[in-house]
């Protein structure tokens, strides 16, 4: 994370008032800088990534986060005469499912590289069970045209780094009353 870092979040939760208030000012500055950062990226973003950049999943419960590899089959080449000229091809897919109120939002990332999981800092004081989405950032992979990185800070202190080319966002409404959560907060 470059803007909403684990370290800033820890200062934001400092027990002494002076540190907490100073972190509040840092947070406001981080919001302003992040908006400036995104404004410089919009022209590079396809519409799905723009939509991803504006999603507010804060406080959403993480139901699933995983990476999978799938073979890419060229079915049209099955009748190609002679020996196979192609190595088997695979693609990576990361799935992150988040429950917010009465809706499940599932993000399908078409990966450029493996999803990485940065462990929580040693001094992370918050519970690691029942992960929730805290904050996220989108970055452009310099020198790697058409590729982005989604960084997600979770309530367990873990930071997901998801390098992707494009993303699909799926929303699924739960039956009313199945959620034990209150309204999503800003």
């Amino acid at each position, binding site marked *: 994370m470059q803007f909403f870092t684990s370290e800033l979040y820890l200062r934001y939760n400092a027990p002494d008032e002076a540190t907490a208030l100073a972190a*509040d000012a840092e947070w406001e500055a981080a*919001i302003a800088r992040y908006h400036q950062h995104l404004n410089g990226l919009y022209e590079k973003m396809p519409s799905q990534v723009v939509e991803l950049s504006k999603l507010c999943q804060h406080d959403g419960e993480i139901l699933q986060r995983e990476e999978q590899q799938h073979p890419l089959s060229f079915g049209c080449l099955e009748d190609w005469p002679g020996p196979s000229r192609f190595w088997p091809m695979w693609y990576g897919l990361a799935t992150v499912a988040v429950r917010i109120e009465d809706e499940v939002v599932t993000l399908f990332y078409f990966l450029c590289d493996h999803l990485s999981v940065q462990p929580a800092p040693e001094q992370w004081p918050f519970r690691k*069970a029942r992960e929730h989405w*805290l904050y996220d950032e989108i970055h452009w992979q310099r020198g790697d045209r058409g590729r982005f990185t989604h960084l997600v800070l979770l309530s367990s202190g873990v930071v997901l780094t998801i390098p992707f080319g494009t993303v699909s966002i799926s929303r699924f409404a739960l039956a009313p009353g199945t959620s034990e959560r*209150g309204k999503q907060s800003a």
Partner: protein
Amino acid sequence: MWPRAETLDVGPAIGKRVGMGGKGKKKPGNKRVRPIVAPSTAPLGPSIHEATVLSGGGVRKGKVITQAQAEALRRNGQDIVVCGPQHGANMLLARDIEHNANGAYNRCGPHAWAGRNGLPHYQPDPRPPAGHTIYETATRHAL
């Protein structure tokens, strides 16, 4: 018709010049002077309200409630908001409410996409219950 120049209980009588006496010399008359009340220097304390988190991320404040009522709402997973001009006082009261209601907590800053109406808040760690103890800052206010 002008009223008679007579001393009124309040203020100078119409037609009667205040402070006149002797040969045109001004006497310290019976000017009615309102006592100057020094404005209270003590800042207004925070107020606690029921709250509704709006879809755009803003927070609408409802009726005023007591701290005990706020803690009961929080135990029940409802949102409340602490309002007032003092950022620090709001933050500390919100913290106390969340702690009294639900024990361990964490504090979260406003999300970048909530705009100017997004507010910081405390919430239980871990959940449940749902909901948040939200509070105003010097620059962010409930609607």
